[in-house]
């Protein structure tokens, strides 16, 4: 059952097309990873879902539904009622994402008071409960602290607890561990994983790190130049990657045991093109070994067994041979 459905989402910044017809769906209670390199449009997609795009951006979609409700028709006021309540978001930079001028408790409490009303006391109690839930020791003391008194890992835990204040159904996490040290990253991911299972949360996790994707995702969508080029359950994607870009990306990652030290890594030649409005065909064609003149035309979305879709003219067998 899909909680969030995105159909042919388009986002533009002036003449630049940041997202070009991206489609995917996040099911209830699943962790869906949106993976891609910088500039592929994955963060912008998440912001578009939350209605947090900059005013200069334009958004268009054939469908943008949350729990069956059409989001594209909602006013800013109606969106703000949903945000923080039924859908919440955490960000990459825990250092700057909390307001330096207010205590942790005050910033957490205001979410509940805004959406549910009630006393500040009740909101603080709930905040303390959630801080404990995200494994922060002595939550009562932490409520009175300011963000600068916390380490990066703790701040990200606070952000997560704050996102959970109203018991949302969807949590969007935009590169939540990129700014953190590796050991802390594992702890935060572990926490997200547990919360997801215990609370039945749906998580849309945006990341560039294929290692994270492999370990936490149920389902993966790979983005390239504003399009979802491949989407599949995690085992399927890593076991039988089909789109040439996905295959290239996976070959670039040094994996202990797979590529011997000193051996050259696989790589994708060239750079990501800047794509404007009116660009047609496959955006990956300049970097693709299999590209031909036909790649300048319309590219179909192919569906394989096991709920596996990819955006390419070539047959899986053709791709596998290269």
């Amino acid at each position, binding site marked *: 059952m899909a909680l969030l459905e995105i159909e042919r989402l388009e986002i533009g910044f002036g003449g630049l097309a940041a997202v070009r017809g991206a489609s995917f769906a996040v099911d209830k209670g699943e962790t869906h990873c949106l993976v891609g390199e910088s500039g592929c449009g994955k963060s912008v997609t998440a912001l578009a879902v939350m209605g947090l795009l900059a005013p200069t951006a334009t958004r268009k979609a054939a469908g943008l539904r949350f729990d069956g409700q059409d989001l594209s028709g909602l006013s800013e006021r109606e969106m703000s009622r949903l945000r923080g309540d039924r859908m919440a978001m955490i960000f990459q930079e825990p250092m700057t994402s909390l307001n330096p001028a207010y205590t942790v408790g005050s910033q957490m409490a205001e979410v509940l008071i805004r959406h549910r009303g009630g006393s500040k006391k009740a909101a603080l109690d709930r905040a303390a409960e959630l801080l404990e839930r995200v494994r922060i020791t002595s939550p009562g003391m932490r409520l009175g602290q300011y963000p600068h008194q916390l380490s990066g890992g*703790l701040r990200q835990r606070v952000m997560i607890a704050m996102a959970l204040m109203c018991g949302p159904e969807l949590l969007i996490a935009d590169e939540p561990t990129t700014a953190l040290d590796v050991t802390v990253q*594992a702890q935060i991911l572990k926490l997200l*994983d547990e919360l997801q299972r215990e609370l039945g949360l749906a998580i849309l996790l945006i990341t560039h790190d294929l*290692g*994270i994707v492999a370990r936490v995702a149920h389902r993966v969508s790979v983005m390239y130049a504003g399009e979802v080029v491949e989407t599949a359950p995690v085992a399927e994607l*890593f076991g039988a990657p089909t789109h040439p870009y996905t295959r290239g990306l996976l070959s*670039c*990652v040094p994996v202990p045991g797979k590529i011997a*030290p*000193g051996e050259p890594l696989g790589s994708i030649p060239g750079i990501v093109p800047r794509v404007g409005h009116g660009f047609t065909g496959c955006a990956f064609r300049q970097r693709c070994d299999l590209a031909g003149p036909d790649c300048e035309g319309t590219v179909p979305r192919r569906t394989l067994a096991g709920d596996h879709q990819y955006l390419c003219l070539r047959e899986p067998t053709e791709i596998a041979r290269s």
Partner: protein
Amino acid sequence: MSQPLIEIRNVSQTFRVKDGLFGKPRRIMAVDGVSLTLNAGDVIGVVGESGCGKSTLARVILGLQKPTAGEVLIDGKRLHDLSGKERARLIQPVFQDPFSSLNPRRRVRDIVGMPLVAQGGIPGSEVRSRVEAIMQRVGLDPAMGERLPAQLSGGQRQRVAIARALVLRPRIVVCDEPTSALDVSVQAQILNLLAELRRDFGLSYLFISHNLAVVEHVASEVAVMYLGRIVERNRSADLFHNPQHPYTKALLASVLTPEPGLGIPEIGLGDAMPDPSNVPPGCRFHPRCPVAISECATRAPVVTASQGGAVECHLVEAASV
């Protein structure tokens, strides 16, 4: 065995920082008594989390910072006896951020040629031809020499930085997180290029990174830093297959390889984040260590030879007796 190319002897670096103009000064122990050697042709990887002192160590080795204590020998000569020009011919840096590492107001050919010009006495025509040759070697079209850094992609900028580092044909390149700011596909290009150049130019690298998978791929020897000290050092293969120090184990455990089904590892480290301005007594890792014993809080462990490498841990110490 010949003399090591770099010999770091008991180097310490402390900083006094003030918060604002009138803040209370704090003493930060960035590097604390580090010794390390780099032999010709080796790639030594230095890994650790932010604030462990690995970048400070790089700056000391590059001569950008005079260590508070200890000394660095390069090719048998004391680093601080070398003139800037002599040092530049031996050792060069490649930095992490390809945006801040190139002067935005200068053209690519001037950036790449800058070390040659700084040497003085090299005719302009020779500078030009050497710049073009090295640009070609790192995979840049010499016609790009006319561009400004803003007109290049991240990967191209990093190639410019590598060309600048190699134009003097140094023997050592200090790579401080050279691919951390790059996308995976570009990272692979740069790592492959660095490996090629090392073979062709006979370079040695000091390779600093927080990404253990990358370090395993490029390094022949690895040093793990924690709060200013090297807690474990070994041949790369031995360290990755048989880590001794609990911190090394935790670091290795937290590497997320792209293998589905393995789940997220339990790291078991405490929440006490390392703070270089407030180094704990005894073993500096003990507040986070899952296997700490009472001794760890009081006495600092000594360097112990183990599995062909060196470790600083009471448990390893006890086992070796």
